[in-house]
């Protein structure tokens, strides 16, 4: 009966020609999109239209082209032949020294992308007064935070897949040899891990956007943590390592143990996990991420690892990144769900 009333209302206020011609089946509720996906698509369009995304995407695309150019220049000078195993992957890791390779750029700029996508996710809605309006619609509260995460993830994935394919395509044109199936699957995993890595920083910044009311505070905290890990953390670990380094003569075992301890400390840095994982995937000749004793190396054949083994080796790193992401997202989710939403 309520419906009838309102139909009457809208008939009254609709332009006449439209009312007369419109078949009733058309006005009936057809192709209704679930509210969650309505929110996701709105968030995606918000992100894609925003200046910060355009700037970040342009920055990453430019560095990607730059490092591609550097890699191709190095290809020319290199004496290696196309018959070398995993020739194609060099595109991502090779550099002529003027610009760092693609992977290093991603490990440096990826966090910035994640932070810039998420730092004002929740607090901007609150400050604009749209959060209480949104929550007075018939949606569950977690749709707000989930839809933002999913939308940002879709944006990141699209960007990275596009970039990966771009590099692949330009490499194909420049080099004239296609990648092997093994190389291609390594590339796919590389892109996947990059997405996970950026998602980690995205979740960190979404957490900050829940905790801090001011978008600027949230952005600066995210950037502070990023700077800490990308610049200072390795210095601190170095200092610490020097301080606790065992004195005097060391057995081989002790040296390896100490080295692995320092590496373990380094791996609290998500950037370290990411570079461990990408190096292993893109350089199949990497056999170990830690120090090995001569004993362990004995009898090893100097051949590249099959992809299954490479994946096995980076599994802890990838799991660590995923676990960190989930932890941060869970914390943000919990804090957001517990909060009382008042109009600003």
């Amino acid at each position, binding site marked *: 009966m*309520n*419906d009838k*009333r*309102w139909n009457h*209302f*809208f008939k009254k*206020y*609709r332009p006449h020609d*439209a009312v007369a011609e419109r078949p009733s089946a*058309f*006005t009936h*509720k*057809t*192709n*209704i*999109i*679930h*509210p969650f996906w*309505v*929110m996701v698509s*709105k968030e995606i369009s*918000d992100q894609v*239209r925003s200046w910060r995304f355009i700037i970040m995407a342009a920055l990453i695309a430019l560095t990607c082209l730059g490092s591609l150019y550097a890699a191709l220049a190095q290809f020319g000078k290199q004496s290696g032949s196309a018959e070398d195993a995993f020739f194609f992957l060099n595109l991502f890791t090779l550099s002529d020294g003027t610009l760092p390779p693609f992977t290093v750029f991603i490990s440096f700029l990826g966090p910035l992308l994640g932070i810039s996508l998420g730092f004002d996710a929740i607090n901007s809605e609150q400050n*604009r*007064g*749209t*959060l*209480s*309006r*949104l*929550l*007075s*619609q*018939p*949606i*569950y509260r977690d749709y707000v935070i989930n839809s933002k995460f999913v939308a940002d993830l879709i944006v990141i994935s699209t960007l990275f897949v596009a970039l990966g394919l771009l590099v692949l395509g330009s490499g194909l044109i420049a080099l004239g040899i296609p990648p092997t199936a093994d190389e291609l699957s390594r590339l796919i995993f590389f892109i996947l891990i990059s997405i996970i890595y950026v998602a980690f920083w995205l979740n960190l910044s979404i957490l900050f956007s829940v905790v801090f009311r001011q978008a600027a505070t949230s952005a600066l905290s995210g950037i502070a943590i990023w700077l800490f890990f990308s610049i200072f953390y390795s210095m601190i670990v170095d200092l610490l390592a020097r301080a606790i380094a065992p004195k005097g003569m060391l057995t081989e075992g002790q040296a390896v143990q100490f080295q692995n301890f320092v590496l373990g400390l380094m791996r609290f840095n998500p950037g370290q996990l990411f570079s461990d994982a990408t190096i292993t995937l893109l350089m199949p000749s990497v056999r170990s991420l830690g120090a090995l004793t001569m004993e362990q190396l004995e009898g090893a054949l100097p051949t590249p690892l099959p992809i299954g083994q490479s994946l096995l080796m980076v599994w802890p790193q990838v799991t660590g990144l995923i676990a960190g992401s989930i932890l941060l997202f869970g914390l943000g989710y919990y804090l957001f769900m517990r909060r*009382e*939403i*008042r*109009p*600003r």
Partner: protein
Amino acid sequence: MAETIIELVNLTKKYRSFTAVDHIHLTVEKGEIFGLLGPNGAGKSTTILMMLGLTEPNEGQAKVCGIDPTRHPIEVKRRVGYLPEDIGFYDDRTGLENLVYTAMLNRISEAEATQKANALLKRVGLENVDGKKTGKYSKGMRQRLGLADVLIKNPQVIILDEPTSGIDPQGVRAFLDLIIELRNEHGLTVLFSSHNLHQVEQVCDRVGIFVQGKICAMGTITDLSRQLFGDADHNLEDIYNSFFDEGGVHHE
């Protein structure tokens, strides 16, 4: 008539030691325009939030359209439109886009949403500015867009929190007329919270006066006048002031 649409029983909300809403009882019938009055911090907004299921009561129960908003907030929010004080819109979108988004969150298809949004924009007098981003809207335009936003989900109840603040006098007149029109046409129930006694007097059938988390008076203005002064000649301002002058908070 006489169909109860909002029923609050013993509703209480405490923030640590502070009691924001203190065991209130309130019944609003279908098609009524009910005015919520009271100074800032008297518990009006908290009561509204509890009715929408946006915050949980510590004690007591609310029923809106026969549904408990604490247990089934989605069902309640499907039927209730809420216009918060100083409503926010997505500033980089047009009024039409904002309305269509709200409609689609209420499971209305895009085509129907656009059609409804255009009709409502016309109704609230914003049809000529629908290409303008809401960031460029004036305060009064935002409030009118807010009303359209509330109406687009075909609500049974609308809750308006200070809806007329920032609108020019003529605009207020039109806004209040629109509310009365909507009530008369569709039997909407309206909860109207305001500090402006004159406006409340113009539109509300009954009022409830909040003081320190309690409703200390409730009824039609003539009833209240009779209760407090023994005759029906006093206006809402006299009634309201009688609770706050000379420490008359305990007037009950």
